[in-house]
């Protein structure tokens, strides 16, 4: 029974990793941009929520609603005025610029909030649990997983059911031709990054509620996100969720065997998937 419990906790943890990864996957899928500052943006989101909670005395769940449009604006401006300038045939400039952004963000957060680890205030809800048969599930992990599924369903709806989604897909397919049809790729990319940062904010909420954070944990979140995206196959959102689950389960099972193996087991699972399916579980046909 302990094993079933371990696996289920791992699946739920995978929801958090899928939230980390969805924004990364979205941005990569639309503009082939690998945002190395993604993890630091999650941490920045967590600090933003913390500031709103502290200054306005709000519940984190309310603060996140205020933080989301703010982060959308950050993403929009970041893409429009910085990252769009790095896009082109060469893949190196966006990597270098986002790597620099990652360092700048970490140091800015360190300057502003010190290296002390922080946590979003918890209440009864965040520590509540429900019993399902012999297994006890935390409400927070369930909420996290539910949010991840909701985010992915919403993104899929956006992509395949709306005009904006069609513009996303058309621009992703061929930005030059799209611009001839009257689409402004620069604005489409800016909107996509804005949406990615809204998802980042949701991820930041659960990151801050479930564990401590400090300015230096961004790069590790980036790696989990990356692994989830690559296991799933670049550009597939449901694949990203599955990738998150695989890493989550590997980590909890690893930890159950030996507490020192938690992080290692996740990375080993990632390497194992790459050995068997180098292009991920659900690769896109044309890439």
């Amino acid at each position, binding site marked *: 029974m302990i094993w079933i419990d371990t696996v289920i906790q791992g699946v739920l943890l995978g929801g958090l990793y899928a939230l980390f990864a969805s924004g990364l996957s979205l941005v990569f899928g639309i503009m082939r941009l690998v945002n190395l500052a993604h993890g630091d943006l999650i941490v920045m989101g967590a600090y933003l929520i913390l500031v709103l909670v502290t200054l306005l005395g709000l519940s984190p769940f309310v603060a996140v609603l205020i933080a989301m449009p703010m982060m959308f604006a950050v993403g929009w401006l970041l893409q429009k005025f910085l990252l769009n300038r790095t896009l082109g045939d060469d893949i190196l400039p966006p990597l270098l610029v986002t790597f620099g952004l990652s360092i700048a963000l970490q140091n800015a957060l360190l300057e502003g909030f010190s290296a002390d680890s922080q946590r979003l205030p918890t209440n009864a809800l965040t520590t509540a649990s429900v019993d399902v048969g012999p297994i006890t599930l935390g409400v927070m992990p369930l909420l996290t997983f539910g949010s991840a599924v909701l985010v992915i369903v919403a993104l899929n709806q956006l992509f395949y059911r709306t005009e904006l989604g*069609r*513009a996303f897909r*058309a621009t992703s397919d*061929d930005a030059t031709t*799209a611009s*001839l*049809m*009257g689409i402004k790729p620069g604005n489409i990319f800016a909107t996509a990054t804005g949406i990615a940062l809204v998802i980042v904010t949701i991820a930041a909420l659960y990151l801050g509620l479930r564990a401590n954070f400090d300015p230096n944990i961004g790069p590790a979140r980036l790696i989990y996100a990356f692994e989830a995206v690559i296991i799933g196959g670049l550009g597939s959102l449901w694949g990203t969720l599955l990738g998150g689950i695989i890493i989550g389960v590997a980590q909890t099972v690893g930890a159950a065997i030996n507490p020192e193996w938690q992080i290692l087991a996740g990375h080993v699972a990632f390497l194992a998937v790459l050995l068997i399916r180098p292009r991920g579980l659900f690769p896109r046909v*044309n890439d």
Partner: protein
Amino acid sequence: MTMLALQNVSKSFGALTVTDDASFEVPKGQALGIIGPNGAGKSTLFNLITGNLRADKGSIHFEGRDVTHVSAMERCLTGIGRSFQIPQPFEKLTVYENLLVAATHGRNLSESDVRDDCADILERTELIKRANVAAGQLSLLERKRLELSRAMATQPKLLLLDEIAGGLTEGECQALIQTIKEIHAQGVTIIWIEHVLHALTSVVERLLVLDFGQVIGIGDPDEIMSSRAVQEIYLGIDV
């Protein structure tokens, strides 16, 4: 009324002059064919008209308005539509979605306003049965039809066709000519670059010959085709 007017337009890439002092006018409702050997600068001329390239010298007027310094997107919105020599559909979008993108963004309208138009266009270009197929799955003729449909979806006043008949079988070519004739009959002004001469001459009213970036002749298709200059330069006949 003049739909499009080029005055002394020149374009160079480094030392290579690809468009050399080109001047011509296209009256509203006319179909103009452009011929010339490979490398004569035909596609460059199109890129200058659509705004994908900017002219180094000279001016381009569309419906009396100076568009020389207007962006490609803006020109699309004012009514210049084009098809590409090599079809460039959005491969992962369906045929219908390809048209919706062109129609909504190319005309600044919402989806509900353009749905019927798009279905009409697909009906006319005989793609309606393939509407929900991903564009990447289409045959060459279907891709060419999609290029045409997509250009039509932006409701162009001026339609630029770039070697749309190339690579098709005789039967396919005839079918496409029929569709283009119908579009022209509705009053759309057309400029058509084509190597398949019989396809071109069965539609256009005027022919322009380009060589080394220069306009070396423009006028009645029969006269142009029988002129000495064209036979020498374009057909490679030593007269």
